[in-house]
């Protein structure tokens, strides 16, 4: 029988079906971070439980730590230092590998896990963080969970999971210049709404996906959670194998050959049935920017804030009016040219070396507008080292960007560093919710190219005007 990639991974890890239709799924890897992982570790030990396989559990410091140069354990986040200390102590007690504040492998969990070869095709990986779906880009079954589930996974090496439905999203056509994976995922969500993927494990496929490099695939899968999907995944191919070869936690020696032989079977069989299939013609996608407080409120950079449609319910109207007010925008207003106060390049969506190279291509020989505060936060120590080896840090700095230490930084506001009330920010992150980057802050999601171009212009700008 022809079966889907998802079904192959599921059945390879299904220990048994439980009464009521849920499955007991074997978990190969658990990743934690200091924000939610600390609580999970503490709670587990306070209940007197132990980790079944500490060697399969990893933890990063990324969410609460500062990203200012010269940082240590103190952080601007209120109470943050306690999270850092407690994570360190709990990790030591639990005997798990911690990527500590200034460890040479430290970085944002979804950046370092692929980079170190911790996530691999065909494995199950969970993390108490919603963007764990990113890691499906390598052909893994990786999804975000709550802290209690993380405790469950650590104590039992399993999770109780309801099997999601399957959806295939075919990305066809060609990509226009300056259009990136970020634009594609924003476009998909704008077209099919943030509820479009609810209940599904999504497989991205098609010629456009095959053409994307592994880092771009990570960006594509990153926002599956904004699409409400259980997770996303992509069949691993030679690009993935080449990406993983030689990474610190990737299989070695004889195991490598065995692993690759297995990984090559990880694809949906021809004729496999999905519960839902949608197709996206990528040729029609232009650089996308969000205008509202939900990722679905996005459109092409040459577009306008949509008019309020007739026939909307009173509730939807009120919600929309609130969005316009929060964002300081009017229906019909054009996005391009909208003055910004800040630009942020970073986060698990867009902080990898290819993202920084793209932004640098826009910034080379240019200056950030004097009215804009611009910040670049590499996703990991390795990305930062690589960027510095290529001289990218000089391009960012010369343009007027701050060049930071790796971490989540101002992707989200936790009471520490943030943008100022009412500020408008062009950002490569994944969430534009009210207050996400600080109380009253107006976030416009876009690709690194668009954010860099906007930083230079001092207003939302079309990257095609800056990339030749």
């Amino acid at each position: 029988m022809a079966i889907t990639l998802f079904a192959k991974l599921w059945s390879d890890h299904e220990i048994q079906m439980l009464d009521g239709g849920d499955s007991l799924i074997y978990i190969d890897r658990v990743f934690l971070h200091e924000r939610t992982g600390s609580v999970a570790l503490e709670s587990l030990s306070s209940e007197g439980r132990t980790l079944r396989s500490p060697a399969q559990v990893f933890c990063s410091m990324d969410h609460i730590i500062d990203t200012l140069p010269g940082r240590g354990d103190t952080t601007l986040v209120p109470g943050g230092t306690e999270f850092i200390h407690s994570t360190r102590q709990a990790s030591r007690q639990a005997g798990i590998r911690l990527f500590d504040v200034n460890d040479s492998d430290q970085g944002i969990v979804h950046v370092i896990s692929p980079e170190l070869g911790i996530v691999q095709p065909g494995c199950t990986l969970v993390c108490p963080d919603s963007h764990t779906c990113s890691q499906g880009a390598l052909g893994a079954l990786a999804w975000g969970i709550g802290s209690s589930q993380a405790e469950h996974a650590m104590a039992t090496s399993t999770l109780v999971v309801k099997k999601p439905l399957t959806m295939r999203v075919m990305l066809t056509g060609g990509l226009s210049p300056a259009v990136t994976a970020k634009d594609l995922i924003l476009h998909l969500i704008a077209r099919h709404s943030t509820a479009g993927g609810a209940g599904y494990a999504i497989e991205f496929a098609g010629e456009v996906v095959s053409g994307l490099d592994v880092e771009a695939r990570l960006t594509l899968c990153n926002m599956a959670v904004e699409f409400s999907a259980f997770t996303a995944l992509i069949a691993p191919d030679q690009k993935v194998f080449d990406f993983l070869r030689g990474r610190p936690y990737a299989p070695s020696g004889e195991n490598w050959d065995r692993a690759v032989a297995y990984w090559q079977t990880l694809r949906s069989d021809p004729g496999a049935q999905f519960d839902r299939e949608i197709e996206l013609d990528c040729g029609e996608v232009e650089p996308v920017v969000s205008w509202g407080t939900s990722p679905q409120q996005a459109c092409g950079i040459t577009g306008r804030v949509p008019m309020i449609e007739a026939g909307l319910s009173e509730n939807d109207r009120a919600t929309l009016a609130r969005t316009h007010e929060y964002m300081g925008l009017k229906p019909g207003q054009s996005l391009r040219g909208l003055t910004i106060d800040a630009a942020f390049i970073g986060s698990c969506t867009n902080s990898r070396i290819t993202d920084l190279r793209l932004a640098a291509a826009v910034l080379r020989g240019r200056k950030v507008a004097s009215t804009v505060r611009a910040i670049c936060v590499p996703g990991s120590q390795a990305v930062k080292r690589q960027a510095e080896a290529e001289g990218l840090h000089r391009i960012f700095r010369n343009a007027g960007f701050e060049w930071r230490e790796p971490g989540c930084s101002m992707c989200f506001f936790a009471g520490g560093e943030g943008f100022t009330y009412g500020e408008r920010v062009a950002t490569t992150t994944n969430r534009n919710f009210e207050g996400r980057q600080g109380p009253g802050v107006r976030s416009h999601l876009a690709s690194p190219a668009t954010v860099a171009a906007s930083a230079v212009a001092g207003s939302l700008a079309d990257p095609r005007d800056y990339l030749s």
Partner: protein
Amino acid sequence: MRKFTVLRGVAAPLLRANIDTDAIIPSREMKLVSKKGLGVGLFAGWRYTVAGGREPNPDFVLNRPEYADATILLSGRNFGCGSSREHAVWALSEYGIRAVIAPSFGVIFHGNCERNGILPVVLPEAAVQAIAAAVAENPQRQQVAIDLEQQKVASPDGREFEFEIAPSSRQMLLEGLDQIGMTLGHLDAIEAFERAFRKRRPWLFEA
């Protein structure tokens, strides 16, 4: 975990769609490495007059006297979307919310609720609005009743709405079971699976 069988209580409407976990508990309110002490931060961005402050905003629904002691929330689509932080559920729970009725929920949040003894009830948008309307006149008296055993919500206007829930979640909530303990009951099966799996995929266990 606290059992959930039948609940009758004041239901407060927060009918906006897409209320995310950061709105439920802002990041800045998660100051301790603990599941406790979060109730005061619930909806802090809306509930208090200034960010980080503690002066109640009189307009916010949970601060209005008629909705005092609410144990049920009525909400719009996609409640609990966004960040996976379980703190959102711990905050609701500590505040005293025992059930949320909405047309849909963020996936991770939905599971987090069930594991913490809060019942997420999925009803069509029209039903949620009908219940909110029926409550509005006198919320303290016009209470809503939820019967998990029967899988029914009784609106104060006498209408009843049936809802679906996964059988395993229903059992866990009804009996107040601890999921780790339940799973460790299958330890033999887990170990047998693991032995075979390690042989099949040895590269996943390289030390």
